[in-house]
């Protein structure tokens, strides 16, 4: 293969992951699968995500996808998280087909976070 394996969007998200971090005291989930570790935490208010942060160990596509997901989820209804899909994100970044399994780990993490928030909207 010759050429840049990363789109401009992936590079921009990887270079400036403004949502990287942890929301102290907020509900949090971690998924470790497919050689990828993703941790998500979120604050909610009035049934919506007010802030969302990620930590990720993975390739640049994983980090870029996690950043994009956090940015996209803020402002959305908590109930939407449990039906979240990454298909559109995989096309828009784009993510090479051989890495799709890694990005689905993020989908799992978002859905898991949605379930956690539904059961326990505040951290204990």
């Amino acid at each position, binding site marked *: *293969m010759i050429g840049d*394996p*990363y789109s401009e969007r992936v*590079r921009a998200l*990887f270079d400036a*992951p403004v949502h*990287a971090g942890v929301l102290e005291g907020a509900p949090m989930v*971690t998924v*470790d699968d497919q050689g990828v*570790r*993703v*941790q998500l935490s979120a604050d909610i208010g009035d049934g919506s995500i007010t802030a969302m942060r990620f*930590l*990720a*160990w*993975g*390739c*640049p596509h994983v*980090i870029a996808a996690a950043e994009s997901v956090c940015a996209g989820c803020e402002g959305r209804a908590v109930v939407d998280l449990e039906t979240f899909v990454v298909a559109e994100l995989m096309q828009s970044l784009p993510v090479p087909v051989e890495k799709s399994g890694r990005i689905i780990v993020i989908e799992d993490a978002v859905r898991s976070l949605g379930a956690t928030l539904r059961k326990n909207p505040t951290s204990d």
Partner: protein
Amino acid sequence: MTSDDRLIYLDYAATTPVDPRVIETMSALSGEGADFANPSAVHAAGRRSGTHVARAATQLASLLNTQPDRFVWTSGATESNNLAILGAARHRQHRGKHLITMLTEHKAVIDVFRELERQGFDVTWLNPDASGVLDVADLEAAIRDDTQLVSIMHVNNETGAQQDIERIAECCLEHDVLLHVDAAQSVGKLPIDLSSLPVDLVSMTAHKLYGPKGVGALYIADKPDVHIEPVMFGGGQQRRLRPGTLAVPLIAGFGQAAEIASGRLEDDLEYLGTLRSRLWNGIRDIPGVQLNGDLSTSYPGLLNVSVDDIEGESLLLALEPLCVATGSACNSHNQDPSYVLRALGRSDSEAQSAIRFSLGRPSSKSDIDFAISQYQNAVARLRAMAPERAA
């Protein structure tokens, strides 16, 4: 190397820039009015072209202290490896079909042996020690009555590990087995004296020693028992071993690059060793950094390091505009852990986080200092972004 777009190139084991004197030599042989004729032609123009090929052979022979008529010109080390290994194995197969090589060879050797396995040859794959060096006793133990060829690289392209070719050659000579050496990473970089080194076949390429891409050579020792069969057909050039019109400008460039290397080899080694020490001293104290190889025995222009709990592909991108490699350049889009580092006993995650810094003549202290700072920052940034592993 710093250019306007601020790329810092530390990937000289992949390829080097062409020396300006080499460019001048090649340019003078390329246009109308130049000695562009086919050097195999018997007319006066052909003979004039032929003098440039002969001069290049003399320059290369001088670098390696051998005779100019011992080289077959090829397109590069990959072709030289194919010609040497396939050619020797097929020529000697009536005597036996056992071959020996190492698990840490370049793909241009590994894949040729895999092909020979498919064709019914029996290959023994030797493992080096943890620093990448072959124990010659292991080689001796692997040699059988039907062994015909041993192929061992001189300097490993990923770790810089240097094999003891002299002892390996003596072992092969004692057992009447041909020895091929892939010297793509050492010709023009380390002293090699073919007049005293009893090797039979040596692969080399120009673009690793500030020559052009697209030209290499295979050295064939002048011994009664050293013969190979061609793997390409189509003309009588080069004793029918490698047909095709010779690329005179590229060959002349290769010769010029060899002559330049002859005159500065020791200085280059000392300079690169100083830079590598500076680089290693700048990053060795980062928690979890691990050296792949042994600095006391490896080629001084190369440093390969792994770091705990960092994803290699992200590390490579975070290091930009530093141009370095994970594994070999030929493999740079394949994110599988390096098979070379796995053979040295590194775990998948250690091998996957490995970065190869390879230094060259244009490398400066400021390049090294930039690399140190960039590596420290990239590791810190990725660690800060990574969740804890589950207990």
